[in-house]
């Protein structure tokens, strides 16, 4: 065990910190889950990309720095410490890109990755359907072979598509074998949302942003080059993505450490602490964020030794999502009756916004009920039925 960073890691941290301090937009950008805010965030992503901070862990040829996992974690810590904007490219760079690196063709990688990293092309996720939420294998949207068009004709409906109303492209699963059931006969497609036959309807989320969308597909032609992985192997391909979503890449500890530090600042800014139990909750939020950090270093060391993320990733998703809820809940307790004032100046209104976002954590990327099933069945080995 050695818990000291190398000189080069410290230098990497210092470089990131210095650049972020000089470049993070002030005042903060409007929410990236609105049309105007999304445009501003795309500009920010371009700035990040040009300075090669958008995708530090990627190869240089696609705009990265070939950074190690440890350096990526350091970058994340610095990014959130600096109060930098949300990442509107996250579903592309954290969810689709790992799958592309693992299972995509060189042609796909060359065509897609750099534009994804620079936000020239933005990506949304097309998993959920009206009848396929936690039970993702219940997908009904279908794709029919179209030899004349050199591809597939897609029809059906995707829903709860984050930033779907603003993004350029969608990745998702469609049923290519109508006789196969559940996890079989699905194929992973990359869909141009500007294509003929696509209709996108924005849906307002709990926090008032149009951050959701329904995506209707009516006989949309998708060329063969936009099939990711093998036909009818989509479930296996998609699982590579959900592994990264639940595990390391989507929500790194830096985000929660930074939020816990802000929570401590909020606590300290108050002189009258009428409720002594809220102090315990502040301490606990910071300790849990810290625990997540060390659990992550533990996991990363295992990965650097050649291990892989497995079903243990479900434990991680449960932990950070429930921590995030508790942390924001504590902030609202500190704010008391002021918490509802969402037009407040300064950072106070951000807590109500953050709280509403935190509430989605135990739901998205597989509800925490499903995650607990995964832990019980695949980590502990309890029987499925």
């Amino acid at each position, binding site marked *: 065990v*050695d818990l000291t960073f*190398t*000189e080069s890691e410290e230098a990497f941290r210092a470089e990131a910190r210095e650049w972020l301090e000089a470049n993070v937009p002030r005042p903060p950008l409007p929410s990236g889950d609105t049309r105007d805010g999304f445009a501003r965030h795309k500009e920010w992503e371009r700035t990040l990309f040009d300075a090669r901070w958008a995708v530090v862990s990627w190869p240089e040829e696609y705009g990265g720095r070939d950074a190690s996992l440890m350096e990526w974690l350091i970058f994340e810590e610095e990014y959130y410490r600096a109060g930098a904007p949300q990442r509107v490219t996250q579903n592309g760079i954290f969810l689709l890109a790992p799958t592309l690196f693992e299972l995509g063709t060189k042609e796909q990688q060359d065509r897609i990755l750099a534009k994804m990293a620079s936000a020239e092309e933005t990506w949304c996720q097309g998993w959920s359907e009206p009848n396929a939420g936690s039970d993702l294998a219940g997908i009904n949207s279908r794709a029919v072979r179209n030899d004349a068009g050199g591809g597939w004709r897609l029809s059906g409906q995707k829903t709860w598509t984050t930033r779907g109303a603003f993004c350029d492209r969608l990745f998702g699963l469609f049923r290519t074998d109508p006789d196969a059931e559940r996890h079989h006969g699905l194929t992973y497609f990359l869909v141009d949302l500007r294509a003929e036959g696509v209709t996108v309807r924005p849906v307002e989320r709990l926090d008032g942003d149009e951050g959701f969308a329904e995506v209707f597909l009516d006989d949309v032609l998708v060329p063969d080059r936009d099939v990711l992985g093998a036909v009818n192997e989509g479930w296996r391909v998609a699982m590579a993505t959900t592994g990264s979503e639940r595990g390391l890449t989507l929500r790194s500890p830096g985000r929660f450490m930074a939020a816990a530090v802000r929570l*401590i600042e909020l606590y300290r800014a108050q002189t009258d602490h009428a409720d002594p139990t809220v102090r315990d909750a502040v301490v606990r939020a910071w300790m849990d964020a810290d625990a997540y950090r060390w659990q992550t270093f*533990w996991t990363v060391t295992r990965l650097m030794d050649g291990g892989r993320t497995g079903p243990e990733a479900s434990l991680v998703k449960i932990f950070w999502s429930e921590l995030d809820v508790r942390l924001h809940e504590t902030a609202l307790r500190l704010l008391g009756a002021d918490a509802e004032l969402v037009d407040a100046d300064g950072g106070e209104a951000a807590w109500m916004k953050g709280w509403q976002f935190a509430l989605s954590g135990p739901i998205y990327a597989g509800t925490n*009920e499903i995650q*607990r099933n995964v832990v019980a069945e695949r980590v*502990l*080995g*309890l029987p499925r039925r």
Partner: protein
Amino acid sequence: VCSVSPGGDGVRFAFTDHQLAMRDAVRGFLEKECPPKVVRDAWTNDTGRSGLWSRLGELGVLGVLAPEAHGGFGGSFLDLVLLLEETGRAALPEPVVEHAAVAVPLLDGARAEAAAAGDITVTVAAPTGVVPNADTVDLVLVGDDFAEPGSLQLRQRASVDGSRRLFVIEPVPTSTDGDAFDRAALGIAAQLVGLAAHMLTTTVAYAKERRQFGVPIGSFQAVKHHLANVALALEFARPVVYRAAWSVAHGDDGRSVHVSAAKARASEAALLAGRVALQVHGAIGYTTEYDLHLWMKRAWALAASWGDAAWHDGRVGRAILDADHSPKEQ
């Protein structure tokens, strides 16, 4: 490889092959020599102990922190933490934390050598005045000084965990050695992790086996979620304990805060594991014929000793909320 050089190969949060091999050896030894019957016997035998003390010395468990010149391993808490976790897993009825984690580094030459070999046993008076196994030890650390048990006013008390042979000393001792306290709390935290892991493993096995309504009870979602919550508590307690072991081993400035995080989360994990284990076992777990209670009662006792979760959370709170500086963030 356990590198300890600052600015060396970078963050490497894993134990060395040697540390893991030593853990496996101790686990194998305790599985064979300290089955539940040995724990159970300690409730009623004359000593409240296992009879394995000198063999633990031979195995090297007791002298990890003793200098090599005095027959020890010259190791650090990183070499000890996994071994203490194993003694928790086995619910070993011995004052091994008091002896190996707290007292041994404070002993002078000849006594350190005897302690490393397991020729003598040293226990420690906790800040509450509780002294485990005072009737069978050679020395007691009271405050900052060692005393022979015969020279002390000791009164026997009964623990809910009958394998803990407890005495109390008056007046309550005061120590100026914060590091000794931290080593005790961290050692107990490691044992609590082992206790929790054992209760989770045995309860999962029971839930796979026990059938009701024609199916294993482990197939019911309510049972699954109970057990997943224990796995969650353990997953996020363990690295915190190992991180504190690093901080203690290296004299890190934040070691007391790190130890407190470790003891708090390990205490909670073990209490939750016991609670869930009992619920999943049902009535069989509520009997003393069944072994679960041996582990559960140990967890109850240890979770509250050397500071419970609330006390340790409070110590962290004083460090991060009341100090002038912001919490350490890298």
